[in-house]
């Protein structure tokens, strides 16, 4: 029984239909494939903004928050790749809602705990790669597209976390921390509006 289920799951994963959101079209050029994958993270607010929020939250949690949460984030990203075959366009909305919650937590909570940071890193990693690859089966696309997505997701989150950490390290005054919490509230506000736009677009 378990074997049949595994075969069905595998078949569903490999035969999943192409997503409408990101129909990857690059040819045999590895660099073009990499750029196309990275572009899905960088040029779409639905994926970019939640990851920026995650970076800020991790820096507000701990000066080395990104380093500490990186394994969970990577695990999420990798787990999202096979999950992408089973999700529809709704996953983008779920990612945006998760991003809004992350930004609200970053803005409103004075202190963050390890479990919260790790759980959010894992969830956002999972949702970001699933949303970027929605509808595509495992290894249905050229490998460098996956590399581009994973690279860009890590770069965006690490850059946000790095800039926030550096700023709070250089200026230890409380107002700098407040400034990053305000940035979190602005991100949450922008994502709320983007979410409304996606609702009206469908």
């Amino acid at each position: 029984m378990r074997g049949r289920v595994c075969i069905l799951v595998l078949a569903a994963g490999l035969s999943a239909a192409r997503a409408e959101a990101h129909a990857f079209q690059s040819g045999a050029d590895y660099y073009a494939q990499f750029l196309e994958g990275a572009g899905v993270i960088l040029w779409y607010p639905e994926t970019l903004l939640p990851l920026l929020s995650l970076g800020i939250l991790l820096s507000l949690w701990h000066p080395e928050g990104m380093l500490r949460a990186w394994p969970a984030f990577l695990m999420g990203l990798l787990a999202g790749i096979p999950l992408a075959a089973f999700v529809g366009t709704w996953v983008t909305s779920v990612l945006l809602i998760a991003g809004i919650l992350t930004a609200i937590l970053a803005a409103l909570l004075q202190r963050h705990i390890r479990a919260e940071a790790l759980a959010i890193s894992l969830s956002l990693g999972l949702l970001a790669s699933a949303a970027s690859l929605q509808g595509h089966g495992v290894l249905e696309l050229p490998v460098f597209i996956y590399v581009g997505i994973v690279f860009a997701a890590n770069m965006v989150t690490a850059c946000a976390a790095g800039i926030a950490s550096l700023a709070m390290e250089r200026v230890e005054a409380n107002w700098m921390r407040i400034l990053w919490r305000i940035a979190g509230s602005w991100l949450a506000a922008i994502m709320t509006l983007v979410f409304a736009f996606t609702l009206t677009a469908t």
Partner: protein
Amino acid sequence: MRRHQVAFFAGIAAVMLALLSTSASAHTGEGINSGFASGFWHPILGWDHVVAMVAVGLWGAFLGLPALWILPVVFPLVMAFGGALGVIGVPVPAVETGIALSGVILGLLIAFAVRAPLWVAAVIVGVFAVFHGHAHGTELPEAFNAYGYAVGFVVGTGLLHLAGIGLGFLTKSSVGAAAVRGVGGLIALVGAAFLFGFA
């Protein structure tokens, strides 16, 4: 921060406000041909919005920490919720009245230096934020980039709050506090002008 530095930053904030604000008729965003610019100038080019946003920062400065930063954090969050309601077409009653009332009430709270508990202040600011957000959400020009509009709208609103907080630092001195209370009275008058149809 020394007193002269406070006065310097407050002065810059005041000049910025004076330069950026024009009559409410410019508020439609006509002639602005990109999503970001349209969203950015939308809250800045209407006195009814400007006075309320600045009032949030000013009142926060009057209430002191942590209200100083909690109110400007709460406002964009709730305003975006109101904006989302406007974008998806959920009606909110008496939006323009609510916007005008926000100027009157926030102005009076500053003028009388009312020190409300933090949660009361957050609720008052949050309720008014829904009206301001809804107005912007329904007025989104369809031809423009929605994402750019969202970013510009939030940044423009946030900068107005920061201008209010900058002016609010005047409350560190007794003369400055009196001036800020006077500004609160002016804000209430501007709100009343919109409320009774004089503007």
